């Protein structure tokens, strides 16, 4: 290029670059909008198959809507009249009929059930899929084992349309565990064709596309940007959904998600700050649904294996020093169920979660600290997961402030999301806040993971008590045998013990908040807390 030419072209460019005027919506696209559900959320799936390695929670939503299970839950009316899944009632999704025997359960498959590619759903597909869930390792296998489903031999093909699941032991959670997201039925022939020796379960293939029989199928997925799902008109798992197309866009900025909702461009969103939900609820332009997490609690945990929290008096002192109400008001803007301050004479219920009897009383806490031998307090750190900093950070600041009053000086340790899991597994953090919520809504399930001496990752306090184990194991056994009296007694005992020993201090039951346009109906609460598009309608 010549020098002069270049100079000319530069000045030419400068002259021609003008800020163009903003364009207007095209009315031609208005029709498509009425049949399309536009969802905006912060994060999107990293894998379309829940059996995949490290599939994230948004990935569960895809699996839930694009795959079928043998059975699913009925709906009942929940808090505020919102449809809420019924823990105790099941109905067939792929199965027409469920026959529970003494040590096995038999399912008859629906005759006309077809996968997205048109091949019929057969017993061999069900067996292969369940085998896959218990064999791939990681989260799916873990979830299956929660219902005592651990070996491929437990899944038996009776004939082309009949499958039997044999129980390894009597376990009340086996049937509910067949209705969670993991035991989904995959098109085995299609996936096997795309599997390789290194990848016998075809995880690479199902990562990128859905191969199920569900109500929707993914037609386009750009990781981190959008997921587009189309309705499967041949779905037999339930009534044909009303929404034809689902566009799910990732919008990282919470403020923008709110703006999109309020301007009416997006139909539905979740993962917004509590303050926004509170304001949107107040101004009434949108429908905001707030429902408590089933079987979920945010808590302050203490490592009971090391001083000073190995001392019961110290733990009680902390429990009396937490500013419970302030946390609910200032951090959650009232969107949570309190789990503290139950009346002194209130009998323990056979339920979980339920409030404990501690409340904020700094004088009492100080006295307990003196009794414990720490009249001048001590220094420690309080840790939280940065992924949920919106709640965790102000919560920890309030706790820090309050603990200073009884002489406990805390430094706040912010753990990046990627490290949180590692830190939890190490079980070295002295004081921390975390949330646990179980898919299966049974007290003994929660306690088995969080308080049992087998010390699972969720027993973040490393709490071990032979008495506690006795009650938990007792309740599990009683539940399996249907011995209600023994079950009730054991549940009450382990709840009481958890509150007297107080290795973790329950703070509140968090809410799942979803905001949607007024013309969107059919939202249902599910144990997994993600959206079920199948029941939704627009207009």
């Amino acid at each position, binding site marked *: *290029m*010549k*020098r002069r030419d*270049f*100079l000319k072209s530069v*000045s030419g*460019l*400068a002259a021609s*670059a*003008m*800020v*163009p005027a*903003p*364009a207007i*919506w*095209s009315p031609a*696209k208005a029709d498509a909008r009425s049949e*399309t559900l*536009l969802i*905006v959320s912060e994060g999107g799936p*990293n*894998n379309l198959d829940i059996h*995949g*390695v*490290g*599939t994230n929670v948004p990935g569960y939503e895809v699996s839930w809507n694009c795959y079928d299970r043998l059975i699913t839950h009925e709906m009942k009316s929940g808090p505020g009249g919102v449809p809420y899944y019924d823990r105790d009632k099941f109905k067939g999704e792929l199965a027409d009929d469920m026959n529970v025997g003494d040590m096995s359960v038999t399912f008859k498959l629906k005759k006309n059930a077809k996968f997205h590619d048109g091949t019929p759903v057969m017993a061999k597909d069900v067996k292969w899929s369940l085998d896959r869930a218990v064999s791939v*390792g*990681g*989260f799916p296998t*873990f979830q299956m084992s929660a219902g005592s489903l651990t070996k491929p031999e437990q899944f038996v093909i009776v004939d082309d349309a009949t499958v039997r699941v044999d129980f390894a032991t009597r376990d009340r959670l086996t049937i509910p565990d067949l209705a969670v997201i993991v035991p989904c039925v995959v098109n085995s022939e299609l996936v096997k064709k795309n599997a390789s020796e290194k990848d016998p379960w075809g995880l690479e293939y199902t*990562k*990128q596309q859905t191969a199920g029989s569900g109500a929707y199928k993914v037609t386009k997925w*750009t*990781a*981190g*940007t*959008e997921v587009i799902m189309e309705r499967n008109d041949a779905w037999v798992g339930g009534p044909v959904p009303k929404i034809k197309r689902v*566009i799910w*866009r*990732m*919008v*990282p*900025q919470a*403020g*923008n998600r709110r*703006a*999109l909702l309020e*301007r009416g*461009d*997006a139909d539905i969103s979740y993962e917004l700050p509590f303050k926004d939900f509170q304001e949107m609820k107040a101004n009434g332009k949108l429908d905001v649904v707030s429902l408590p997490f089933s079987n979920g609690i945010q808590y302050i945990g203490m490592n009971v294996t090391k001083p000073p929290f190995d001392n019961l008096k110290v733990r009680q002192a902390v429990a009396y020093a937490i500013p419970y109400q302030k946390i609910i008001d200032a951090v959650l803007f009232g969107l949570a169920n309190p789990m503290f301050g139950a009346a002194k004479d209130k009998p323990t219920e056979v339920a979980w979660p339920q409030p404990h009897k501690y409340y904020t009383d700094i004088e009492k806490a100080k006295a307990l600290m003196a009794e414990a031998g720490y009249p001048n307090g001590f220094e420690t750190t309080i840790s939280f997961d940065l992924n949920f900093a919106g709640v965790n950070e102000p919560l920890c600041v309030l706790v820090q402030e309050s603990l200073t009053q009884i002489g406990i000086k805390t430094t706040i340790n912010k753990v*990046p*999301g*990627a*490290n949180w*899991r*590692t830190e939890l*597994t190490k079980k070295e953090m002295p004081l921390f806040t975390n949330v646990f919520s179980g898919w299966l809504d049974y007290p003994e399930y929660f306690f088995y993971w969080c308080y049992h001496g087998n010390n*699972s*990752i*969720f027993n973040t306090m490393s709490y071990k008590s032979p008495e506690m184990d006795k009650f938990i194991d007792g309740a599990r056994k009683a539940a399996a045998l249907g011995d209600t009296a023994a079950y009730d007694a054991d549940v009450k005992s382990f709840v009481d013990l958890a509150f007297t020993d107080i290795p973790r201090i329950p703070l509140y039951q968090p809410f799942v908040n979803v905001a949607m346009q007024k013309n969107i109906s059919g939202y249902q609460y599910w144990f997994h807390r993600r959206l079920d598009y199948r029941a939704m309608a627009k207009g």
Partner: protein
Amino acid sequence: MLTMIGKRLMFAIPSLIGVVIVTFLLTRALPGDPAAYFAGPAATKEAIEQIRKKLGFDRPLIEQFFRYTNDLAHGDFGNSLTTGQPVATELRNRLPASAELTLLGLLVSVAIAIPLGVLAATRPGSWIDHLCRVTTTAGVSLPVFFTGLVLVYVFYFRLGWSPAPLGRLDVFYSAPPTVTGFYLIDTLIARDFEAFRSALSQLILPATTLAIFSLAPIARMTRASMLAVLASDFVRTARASGLSPGTVIVTYAFRNAMLPVITTLSMVFSFLLGANVLVEKVFAWPGIGSYAVEALISSDFAPVQGFVLTMAVMYVLLNLVIDILYGVIDPRVRLEG
């Protein structure tokens, strides 16, 4: 000239090797265990070990490094764990989005900053000089995400002039067939004018945000360099010879003032790529910046390495282009290694 370019590229090789080694070591030194992260919330120790093995993180570091470089040599950047896609494909898909935005932002910025700088230099102390000072100070002191949010608030939420900040195209348009990856160009090639309009209107706010941020250095540098040139002997001579002020300023003074401006431009371009990360977050822009940040947050090594490497290559190329431009603008500059 070609041999010179070749020589320059040769010199870039050691720095690229350095980048490969440093990024590899840095990502390994990050705290956090990707295996624990990807094993999911309910993983047992054995499950984490299984995943570690699957991902190859149980091997010695040196073996991991050789495997990585071997893959790189075959053009394989590895797989991202968070998005589940090959890094090379993702970068290829996302780079045009970032480049289109950055280039347009830079173009808008140049179109405003250079005339502003020239005018301010020709009339020092006048209102336009003050205007120049105020806009540049304001532009550089407002953080990009803030400017972006304010623009979204005003032009989308309040006035409704701008489309929803939902990325490169309105949700109901489909992307044009990829030729260059730049939607503005691809939609024109496909003769899809509605999509072109949509792509353009989606670009305005983010590009303006970037432009506001990058105005300051360009305008200030233009002004300073013009002032120096205007005070020099040859301009005085030109004026004394009775040349029109326009000819003096544009033909003689501006051309001589351009070298430092070009240098600043290259600098601005590189830090715009950085500022992009925040703009992309605000406007849900599917660019490489937001991709890299997300990967970093989840200790996802491959995309971070891929990103840094791509950036390094881009810087090398950019510097080369700038050096060549020097030679075009000023024949006294010789292109030498």
